[in-house]
């Protein structure tokens, strides 16, 4: 299933980026993210733990960065995410594309687009439930991020689910030759995707 | 009409997964299809009066009424078709009211008077009209239709065609016996309360 949306964070792009460097902030923004390890430049491994309705679950996941583009006009990352919850007999695979671009009035826009395969018990939940839940989590994450920026403002209305992500995503140039490692963007990509993963897994019970 | 949701009680429906019937420990199970569950919740004994006969049944706190009826009482006209209350094959009447026994926890029915299709007399208006109208092909789902029809006629002795549709739409007959079923209910109504 394809999910796409974008949301605005009421802080300048530079401030958002700097927060992405702070693991504590990020951990606070991702529901249930207990562990996030960078294995090498392109591979991350982590674990989401949560307890819903007295059922504790623990889902391992990996993230492999596929491409990076870091331009003044916008930054974009594509990543392949895989997760598995053994107790729930479910696997997830996400091809994700995430873009960040500066917006007017000292704010920035995070846009994501993902093709998500969800297999096993969670996959049977059906698309409407997952769309609704992902939207809830997106708002939650945007709120946390805004709070972390010290600007408690309601996030902008996301684009219609299923629509292509913002212009930044489609207009982004391919990865430049040996770009500097844009940790901020990598983290942002992970955050958005992990938030979704967590959302989906939480809904499992 | 959808069958009535199971009665409320101390156990909330969210606490168990209805797709995983969990039955434990009957002394002499008739089918022993899912008995002697090793790791189960606390047991209790309930009394079910099924088709006029009283049964004392040991159940766990998550035993479904469907499984208690099939495995401990031995009535096999009550059937699992979907496990989610969507097909009506597991319908029973408790005190004359239809219930999807695949969603109902047995503990909540302690002391209940339950009627299944076996319990209806062969000369019962509904049973005899279903037979005469040929309202059964494989017949698997028909006991559920019979009970829903009995409930309908008890509430509404002269149902219109629309009333019949409204009351039976939650039951599925995959053989497609609906025309004969609709006719049978009309015949039963006429038989029970002639114009």
């Amino acid at each position: 299933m394809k999910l796409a949306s974008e949301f605005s964070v009421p802080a300048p792009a530079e401030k958002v980026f700097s927060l992405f460097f702070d693991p504590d902030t990020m951990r606070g923004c991702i529901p249930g993210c207990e562990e996030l390890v960078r294995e090498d430049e392109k591979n991350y491994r982590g674990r989401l733990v949560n307890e819903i309705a007295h059922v504790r679950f623990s889902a391992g996941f990996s993230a492999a960065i596929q491409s990076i583009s870091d331009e003044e006009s916008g930054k974009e990352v594509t990543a392949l995410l895989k997760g598995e919850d053994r107790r729930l007999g479910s696997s997830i695979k996400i091809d994700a594309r995430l873009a960040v671009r500066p917006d007017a009035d000292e704010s920035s826009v995070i846009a994501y687009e993902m093709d998500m395969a969800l297999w096993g018990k969670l996959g049977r939940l059906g698309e409407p439930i997952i769309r609704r839940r992902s939207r809830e989590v997106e708002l939650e994450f945007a709120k946390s991020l805004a709070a972390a920026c010290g600007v408690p403002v309601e996030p902008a209305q996301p684009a219609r689910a299923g629509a292509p992500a913002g212009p930044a995503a489609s207009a982004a140039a391919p990865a430049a030759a040996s770009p500097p490692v844009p940790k901020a963007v990598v983290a942002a990509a992970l955050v958005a995707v992990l938030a979704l993963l967590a959302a989906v897994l939480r809904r499992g019970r | 009409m959808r069958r009535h949701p199971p009665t409320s009680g101390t156990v909330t429906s969210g606490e168990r997964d209805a797709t995983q019937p969990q039955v434990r420990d009957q002394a002499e199970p008739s089918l022993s299809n899912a008995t002697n569950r090793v790791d189960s919740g606390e047991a209790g004994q309930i009394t079910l009066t099924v088709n006029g006969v009283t049964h004392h049944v040991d159940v766990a706190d998550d035993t479904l009424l469907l499984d208690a009826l099939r495995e401990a009482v031995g009535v096999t006209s009550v059937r699992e078709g979907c496990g989610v209350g969507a097909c009506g094959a597991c319908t029973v009447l408790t005190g004359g009211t239809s219930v999807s026994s695949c969603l109902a926890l047995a503990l909540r029915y302690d002391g209940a008077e339950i009627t299944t299709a076996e319990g209806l007399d062969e000369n019962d208006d509904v049973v005899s009209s279903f037979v005469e109208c040929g309202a059964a092909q494989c017949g698997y789902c028909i006991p559920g239709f019979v009970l829903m029809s009995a409930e309908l006629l008890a509430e509404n002795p002269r149902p219109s065609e629309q009333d019949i549709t409204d009351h039976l739409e939650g039951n599925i007959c995959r053989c497609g016996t609906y025309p004969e079923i609709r006719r049978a209910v009309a015949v039963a109504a006429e038989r029970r309360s002639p114009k």
Partner: protein
Amino acid sequence: MREIEQSWVGGSRPRFDTAGRVRGMIAHVGDQAVGAAAHVAVHRATQPHARIEAVHVDEALAMPGVYGVVTGADLYKQLGDRLLTGPAFADQPALAHEKVRYVGEPVAAVLAADLATARAATDAIWVDYEDLPPVYDLADALAGTAYVHDELRPSSVFGDLKHLRGVRDTNVNYTYNLRTGDAEAARDAGAHTVTGEFWAPPTHHVPIELPCTIAWVDSGRLEMLTTTQTPSYVRQTIADLLDLPLSRVRVTTRPLGGSFGAKMYDRLEPLAAALAWTAGRRVRVTATREEAFLLTTRHGAAVSSSLTADAEGNLVSSVADVRYDTGAYADVGPRITAKSGMVAPGPYRIANARVLSRCVYTNKPSAGPFRGFGVPQVTWSHESLIDELAHELGEDPYAFRRRHLLREGDEAPMGTRMHSADFVGCLDAVANAIGWFDPLDRGTGRIRRGRGVAVGVKAVLTPTIANAVLQLNQDNSATLLISTVDMGQGSDTIMAQIAADVLRMDSRRIHVVRADTDATPYDTITAGSRSTYHTGNAVRRVAEAMRDKLIGLAAERFGVPAEEVSLTPDGPRAGSHEVTVAELVHGHFGARGATLTTEANYTSSWTPYDKETGRSDKVTEHWFAGAVGARIAVDTATGRVRIEHLAVAGDVGRAINPTLVEQQLSGAAIMGIGHALFDQLVLDQGQLINGTLLDYQLPSIRDLPDQLTPIVVESPHDDGPFGAKGVGETGILGVAPAIANAVRDAVGVRLTRLPLTPESITMALEENQ
């Protein structure tokens, strides 16, 4: 008519044990006591296509009440390649071995003291997978970059598939070609051509009875009680799987709570047999509704096709490219591909026809037989095309079809002649029923009315074998042993009617024994609408043999030649000589309760189709002919279709029991309404997302048309029992196109993808503006 005659051929006697069905007193497989048994639950794959690196079972094994956990590797160690079974290709393991090929494939089986424990333990199993590139749909499969199977493995069942053994680097497991005349040239030269890209989605049978298999070992024999339409097939499969002589395998059944193709070939049985045999204990395997959705499905099918008429409006060319999505395992898909591909041009006189029909593997739950055996999917295309061509030519769609329909003796495009296939009679009957020739109030404002018709043709499964054994009891009752399975179609009733008619006895005194391969003789399968004709012929013959035996005994007793003896409902008669059957048999044996036994066989034959041209002068024993007429109203604001009148006609040769025939026609039509308007399995990247009855919509009493008219057309078959043929599938063939054609008539839009949801209709209306 005397009451006894009502119980013979042509009488609408009530179905066997209607009273028992109505009160739920007929015991099904799941109702049988099993005693102490291991209850089985299955751990299922969470990947569409992956290599199994490790299966972790220790945690599950440690759970109290768990007897054992078995993996595909465990079974392979004991059974080797025999683990792989299937009716056309030996490609499906009872538990995944080395690879998983669809989400939900069984990977490991837990045997436990009770079902709840077994199911809980499956959650404690986990599997390490190495991803393989998934083949999600027909487009992926035909792109030829990833393969569901490394090589093709045709089974030994069908000799004509031998040449496919070992073929690699393809997802196409079978191709059927029809080449009659030069269809492409005729199309290019033709004056009027219509084309379409048609899609019929995968659907599910959803018989309300869930599948269940109980298997055990007794005296070194594997015995089982199972929900199957194919006991003789299952016996052979289990014998092959366990390398046992047929005499050491016993398959028994009970009446089925519906099936429609869901409970045949390899379902729960190979797993149950393998577990019982290797564990040496009784096992009970059942499926939840969610699991039943994964056991088999109806093929989703894409058809790219064209139909061409010359300047005079005569059909000159039919071209079709048919792709059946058979999922991860071929099942009987290759057979469906051929049998349905050959009727893709429809029941019309067309000199030039070209069909390419392919059976394609994907990483989805396997697709197998479903009422209609692939034919509804091609009927969807040919009946939409011919309707559109009639519109293009400005002709009446009914009259245009009628002009081109095959008549008695005509050769169909695949080379076989028509007999006992009254397409014209069926079409006329439904057109008359829905008032085709009367003025139609087409409606104003948002409600618009329209009418549509469709015709269907299907070949009966050929060649097949039927056997019957009859025991006449001394008290003039009888026991009929056949392996036909009654699943609601009424075979236990009509087989008794056939035998009773021959023997001039009350059919209610004949009991039909439930299939038990230790007792009832071989019968190919109960499927493909073949039983009335094939098993019915075996039953007619076995009864004739019994009649001859009785007449012989009576002739001896009377001291007259056998030709002078006739059998009457009161017993044999010859002039003034008379005796009852009870006295006759008692006199013969000198004992009460003795039995006379006869046996008979009926086998149909065919000429295999040519590999290059797909043609055969006898591709089938006989044909099914059906037609559907629909009068509907479309709410143009919501896109909702209301069926005001649906008429469904089938040529059944001769109705053995007219009431049961009408129920088969109307029941099939109601199932067809679901396929037309809402029924479909929704998969997202290999994951089935509507596999519960909360999500999967089935026709309810609310979906009944305002008027539903089943019409029995009788054009007797020369070789049918009393002229009869089957009827189980005839009614479903044309339902979806008849409704779509009526939508076309009502609002002017042609929809080519099923189902015709309100959204698809409103979208088409918007595009049309």
